[in-house]
C-alpha cells in the first residue's frame, strides 16, 4: 500500500516536497483522488494528499472573487456560491461516476489542475479562464505565487494558465483564487429532432452564429439519447441552451426556434427539463452508468465542423455524442481492453484537435498514449518547461507523458 503524506498547511507541503527531493522519492499529487485514474499509471513512492488544505479563505460576491485552499471540496464551494446566487461559470463536470467512483467528489485544486469545464465552455470558458491567482510548491520545493485576486492582470507571465491543466506535474497548488459569476435567472432549451450528425453540426453552427447567445450546444444521436434526462423523445436530439433573465430567454427562445425550423422539427424544454438535460450532458451520463463502465472512453476536442468527420472515421460500434457545438466528442469504444487508439489517433491527426483516453484499465494506460502525442519540437518544449519546475521529477512523474 502506498504511503500517504497529508500536510496540514502550505508550509508542510513545502516540507514534504523538500523531503521527497532529498530522498529521491516521487510523489503522487492528489486532492481527493477522484480523477486519479486519468493519465498514465502513477509511478510514485508516496501520495501527497492535499485534502487537508481545506476551507474558503475569501469570498466577496460583489467583487466576483473567491479564494480557497486547494484541497477545499468543490461541492462546498458550489454550495457557498449558491447562497449568493453565484456559480463557477465554467460548469466543472464530475468525473466521479464516469470513472466508477462516487458523485460530487473532487477539490477546487483538482478541478483547476485538470482544467475542468462543461457544456458552457463554448460561452464562458474552462477552469483556466477563471483562474486568477495561485500559491504553489514547485518540484524544487519552492513556494511561488502568481496572479492575484483581480480579473485584469498582466503582471509577469500568466503562470495560472500553465498550472491549469498541468495535472499536478509542475507544482502542488496550496491556495487558489478564482473568478465567480452570477447564476442565470432562468434557462430553456430549443430541441431539433431527428438530425443526422452532419446536419446537426450545421444547425449548431447556425445557432452559435446567431445573436441568441447560446450557452450549450450538443448533439445526442439516437443510440444514446435515451440516457439523457428531460428529453421529450428518445431519438436523435440536437439541443441548444439559452440562459439569462426571463424576458431575454423568452425572446431568444422564440427567435432561435424560428431559425431552427429549417433544419427539422423543433421542440422546447422549459427550465426544469432543461436543467435536468444539461446536468446529464455535463456528467456524460450515457457512459457513466454501470453497464457502460467497461468501455474505454475517449474525450476528443476538435473544430466544431470537424467533429462528425472524426466520428465517421471511428468504428461504428462505438457510442458517441457531441458537446461544444460539435467540437467535443465523447466516444465509448465497444470492447473493454481495446481502446482502438490507432484509429482515434489517425482521425485526430488528419482532421485536427486532440484526444485523451480518459478511461481505460491501468495496463492499457501504461502501454498506449493517454494524452495526445506531440510533435517533437513541442514535446521537447513541454519537457523543458517541466524541468524548469520539477527537474528531478518529484511531482506526478510520467503522468502525462513517459519521461516528463
Amino acid at each position, binding site marked *: 500500500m502506498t504511503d500517504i503524506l497529508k500536510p496540514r498547511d502550505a508550509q508542510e507541503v513545502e516540507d514534504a516536497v523538500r523531503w521527497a527531493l532529498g530522498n529521491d522519492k516521487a510523489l503522487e499529487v492528489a486532492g481527493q483522488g477522484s480523477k486519479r485514474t486519468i493519465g498514465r499509471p502513477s509511478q510514485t513512492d508516496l501520495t501527497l494528499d492535499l485534502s487537508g488544505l481545506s476551507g474558503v479563505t475569501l469570498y466577496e460576491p460583489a467583487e466576483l472573487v473567491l479564494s480557497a485552499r486547494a484541497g477545499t471540496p468543490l461541492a462546498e464551494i458550489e454550495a457557498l456560491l449558491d447562497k449568493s446566487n453565484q456559480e463557477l461559470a465554467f460548469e466543472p463536470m464530475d468525473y466521479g461516476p464516469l470513472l466508477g467512483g462516487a458523485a460530487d467528489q473532487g477539490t477546487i485544486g483538482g478541478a483547476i489542475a485538470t482544467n475542468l469545464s462543461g457544456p458552457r465552455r463554448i460561452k464562458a470558458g474552462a477552469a*483556466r479562464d477563471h483562474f486568477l491567482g495561485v500559491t504553489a510548491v514547485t518540484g524544487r520545493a519552492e513556494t511561488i505565487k502568481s496572479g492575484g485576486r483581480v480579473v485584469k492582470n498582466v503582471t509577469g507571465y500568466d503562470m495560472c494558465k500553465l498550472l491549469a491543466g498541468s495535472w499536478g506535474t509542475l507544482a502542488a497548488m496550496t491556495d487558489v483564487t478564482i473568478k465567480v459569476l452570477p447564476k442565470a435567472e432562468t434557462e430553456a432549451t430549443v430541441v431539433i429532432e431527428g438530425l443526422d450528425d452532419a446536419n446537426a453540426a450545421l444547425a449548431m453552427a447556425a445557432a452559435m452564429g446567431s445573436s441568441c447567445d447560446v450557452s450549450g450546444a450538443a448533439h445526442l444521436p439516437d443510440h444514446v439519447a435515451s440516457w439523457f434526462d428531460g428529453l421529450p423523445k428518445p431519438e436523435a436530439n440536437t439541443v441548444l441552451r439559452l440562459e439569462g433573465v426571463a424576458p431575454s430567454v423568452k425572446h431568444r427562445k422564440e427567435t432561435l426556434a424560428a431559425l431552427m425550423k429549417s433544419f427539422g422539427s423543433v421542440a422546447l424544454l422549459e427550465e426544469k427539463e432543461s436543467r435536468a438535460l444539461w446536468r446529464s450532458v455535463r456528467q456524460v451520463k450515457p457512459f457513466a452508468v454501470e453497464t457502460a463502465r467497461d468501455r474505454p472512453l475517449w474525450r476528443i476536442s476538435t473544430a466544431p465542423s470537424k467533429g462528425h468527420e472524426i466520428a465517421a472515421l471511428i468504428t461504428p460500434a462505438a457510442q458517441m455524442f457531441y458537446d*461544444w457545438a460539435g467540437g467535443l466528442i465523447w466516444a465509448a469504444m465497444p470492447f473493454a481492453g481495446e481502446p482502438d487508439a490507432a484509429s482515434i489517433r489517425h482521425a485526430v491527426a488528419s482532421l485536427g484537435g486532440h484526444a485523451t483516453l480518459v478511461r481505460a484499465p491501468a495496463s492499457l494506460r501504461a502501454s498506449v498514449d493517454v494524452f495526445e502525442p506531440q510533435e517533437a519540437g513541442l514535446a521537447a518544449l513541454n519537457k523543458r518547461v517541466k524541468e524548469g519546475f520539477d527537474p528531478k521529477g518529484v511531482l506526478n512523474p510520467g503522468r502525462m507523458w513517459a519521461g516528463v
Partner: protein
Amino acid sequence: MSVRMPEADSAVLARRDGIVAALRSIVPGEGVIASECEMRPFESDGLTAYRQLPMVVVLPETTKQVSQVLAYCHGEGIKVVPRGAGTSLSGGALPLEDGVLLGMAKFNRIKDVDFVNRVVVVEPGVTNLAVTNAVAHAGFYYAPDPSSQIACTIGGNVAENSGGVHCLKYGMTTNNVLGCELVLMNGEVLRLGGKHFDAEGYDLLGLINGSEGLLGVVTEVTVRILQKAECARAVLVGFPSSEDAGACVSAIIGAGIIPGGMEMMDKPAVHAVEEFVHAGYPLDAEALLIVEVDGPRAEVDHLIERIEKIAKECRSMTCRVSTSEEERLLFWAGRKAAFPAIGRISPDYFCMDGTIPRAKLPQVLAEMKKMSAKYGLRVANVFHAGDGNLHPLILYDSNIAGEADRAEAFGAEILTLCVAVGGVLTGEHGVGVEKRDLMPVMFSEIDLNAQQRVKCAFDEKGLLNPGKVFPVLHRCAELGRMHISGGKLPFPDIPRF
C-alpha cells in the same frame, strides 16, 4: 528619462556591417533598414519617454524569414526585440542599441475567415479593428477592444494580453485566442492549439498571451469571433462621491447583472472631457459612471430599468439613459476621449495602469489626492469599474525641470499602493520597461526566478527582448541549479498513513 538596459555588447556592435549584410541575405530589398534617419520612427513605442535607436531594423514577410532571422541571431548571440504597431504604453517594444528590431508590420494578411467555426486566422500585423471589419458584413466582431484598436496589431495584443472596456463580460485576448504559430529564438517553428478548445499538454498558448514578446515571435493567430448583440444601451449616472459610485457598481453586480461595459471617471477627468467633447456630463458630480448593457432588446430594456432603480438607491444625483444609438455613442465619446482631453490641458501626462479590488477605490483615490499635493502634480482618474482596472493620469510638464522625475515617482507610489491594497502593478498595459523595476513590490526573488525558468525553456540564451519585465537577469544555467539544503532532513512532522 533613462532606464537601465542590458549593457550593449561591443563585440556585436563592432560586427554591425557584417550582421546587416547577413540579414539582407535573408530578407532582401527594403526589408532591412540600417540608416539612422530611416530607423528613427522605430526608436520608441507608445511610451515615448524612453527612446533608443536599434542596431538594425528587419521587416520580414514570411514565417521562414522570421525563423531564419532568429536562427541567425541565436547562432551569433544577437539580441532581438519584436514589435507590432508600437502602441505599447509600457515600453515593451523599446529597441536595444545592440539589438535587431524585428518589425512584424508586413504580416498583414487575413488568412481564413471561418464563420462555421466562428474563428478568423490572421497574421500578427493585422490590426485589432481589421479583424472586426473583415467579419462585420456577417454581423460578427472580435470582442477585445483596446482603445488603440484602430492601430494596434493582433500580435501585439497577444504579447500584452490586451483588454478593453468590454472584457468583464467578453474576456481579454487570452480568452479569445485559440491557436498560434510561434517561432522560438532558435528558429524552431511550433504550432499551439488550432480551431479547437484547450491545449494538448501544457497550456503554452495561455502562457504566450501576456508574455510581452519574451518567449517567441508569433507569426499567425487564430481568434474567436462573436455575433453582435441585437442592441446596446448605456446609462450615465452622476454621484456625489466615489464611495456612492463604487457602491452602485457592487449593487449592480450583486443583483446578478454583468454589464457589457462599466466605466467610472472622477471629477477632474469629467471636467477635462466635458470641455473637450461636450458629451453632457454632469460637472457637479464627484464620480461619473457609464453602464452599458447589450443583448436582445427585451433583455436590454429590462436590465436598464433595474440599473436605473439601483442607481437611485445608491444616491445618484443624475441618471440619463441613452434613447438612441447616437446618444449612446456620445456617452462613450467622452470616455474614449479621456486621454486626448487630458493631453489638451497638460503638456505631458503619464498613464498608469494598476488594478485594485474595487472596494478599495475610495481609499486609493483619497491617498492619491494626498500624493497629488505632496508631488505638486494634478491627477485625473478613469477606471474600468467592473474589473478594478484603474488608469490614473498624472499631469506634468517635461519642460519644467524635475517635473518628469516627480511624475515618475508619483506613478511608482500609486502602483505600490495598488499592490498594498491587494491589487497588481498592471492590468492591461504590461510591465515592459516602465514597471520592470517595481516587479519586486509584487513578487519575491523565488517567484521571479520561477518565471525566468519558463523563459529559459523557450530562450535559453536570453536573447529575445531582454531588459523587459524582469529587473534582474540571471543565466539559465544558474537558474537551473538545485539548491537542496535539506537533502537529508529529518522527516517533518506531517501526518502519515
